[in-house]
């Protein structure tokens, strides 16, 4: 059976216009190639 209090906790507030800039900046803009590049950089630094 649906528990209202538990269910309503799962709802997240919608973004308002003045939060759009934050939403853009906080977007996770890393893809898998970025992660690979980062891993290679760390590996190179460790070798040195």
């Amino acid at each position, binding site marked *: *059976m*649906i528990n*209202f209090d538990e*269910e*309503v*906790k799962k*709802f997240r*507030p*919608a*973004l*308002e*216009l003045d*939060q*759009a800039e934050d*939403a*853009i900046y906080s*977007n996770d*803009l*890393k*893809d*898998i*190639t*970025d992660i*690979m*590049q980062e891993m*290679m950089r760390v590996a190179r630094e460790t070798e040195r």
Partner: protein
Amino acid sequence: MADVLNCKRCGGTILVTGYCSQCGLKSEYVNKALNTSKYYYNIGLDKARVRDMTGAKEALQNALKYDKMNIDARNLLGLIYYETGEVVLALSHWVVSVNYFSGRNVAKRYIKEVKSNPHKLESANIVARKYNQALAYAKQGSKDLAFIQLRKVLAENPKFVNGYLLLALLFIDEGRYEKARKALKRVIKIDRTNPLAVRYFNDMGHSDDEIMDFRDFPEDDYDADLLFVEDQPRAYVEPDNVDLNGEPVPVGRYKDINFYKYSIAYVIAGLVLGLAVMGFLVIPHRDKNMESDNRDLKIGFSEAIAAKNVEISTLEASIEDLNQDVSDYETQISDLNRRLGSYEDAQKAVLPDEDKVTLQQALNKYYNEDYDSAVSDLNRLMEDYPDNDVILFYKGMCHLNVGNTTQAKEAFSALVERCPNSAYYTIAVSYGGEGLPATTEDGTGARPEDEEADSAEDEESEESTDASGVTG
């Protein structure tokens, strides 16, 4: 000359080792990532075409994880957010898309279209704000207020999936399953596989087949207001309830839908809501303000009264002091009056030198028992000094010694009357009252035999002669 391969990620030259000279990534891995991204994009596109928004969203997010610069995937994801009512998220993806690729990018048109209509942008913002408010009310347990806000949200944006889901949850909580069902039907009309809607349907006892029916044969009514009015009795019989073998069941006659009735219902509902808002929000707030004002006024008046009371008590204390001063001054005035009387009497008793001599002679005559001569001297002095106590006393004494009691009484009475502060006053009172014997037959009255009277007379005479300035 061999073909030069470039990295699909950064455009750098691919070395013979298969690694990019610029980004250092292996070309094979980059290509694999880009292909995977396209694969997920295609899945997302297929799902979006059949309005499986949730599935499309997941696939496109995966596509972006493999290639953040997959412009098509990002634009489509923005479009899906826009379709489900989340305009700000849609805009954010389109802005990022244009930032990555500013050439012929459809996201530019999307942004332009949204921004070109300020009313639409403001409306999207209002929808988000009211939805957040409704969510807050729902979390606080103010479900009526949440309903009010959601009604505004869905009237403004009839495709706002999260709004319908929250509304359905509120209806389910209140046991209004028919309304919840309608709201959820609208959700799956927009997003055919919305997992939350499907779960709510399942919890309400609907099978997957029924849900698929709802999905495949959606109702066309998108009027959000219908979700907020009470259900009308149905004018038709459910197909499941028809008994094909039984007796025909009479049905109600056809009747036009009375839309005017709905208008009245809306007006009444508006009035009730208005009254409720007045009763629960406006009036208590106003009463609270009035109470606060009254309290401030009471405090102000109490402070003013306290200040006045202090002032009154101070004034009363000063009045008491002044009364005390007045009584002191009155006492001083009476004392001064008494002293003034004594001074005036003393003034009266002081005689000029010639008269002092005459008085001395009269007293000598009195002590030599020459009373008649003494009385004549004293009578002469009386003409000038009718209020002199010494003259009056010795005149009375002379008359007394010759037995002329009546005239003696007159002299003593005159002394009592005119000279109340005189030293002879007590003796004069005793002689002037009933203290004297009646006049004898031979005309001689009773002589004063009281020794005390004699001694007093001697003492008084000494004092009086001193006071009158008469030397012996």
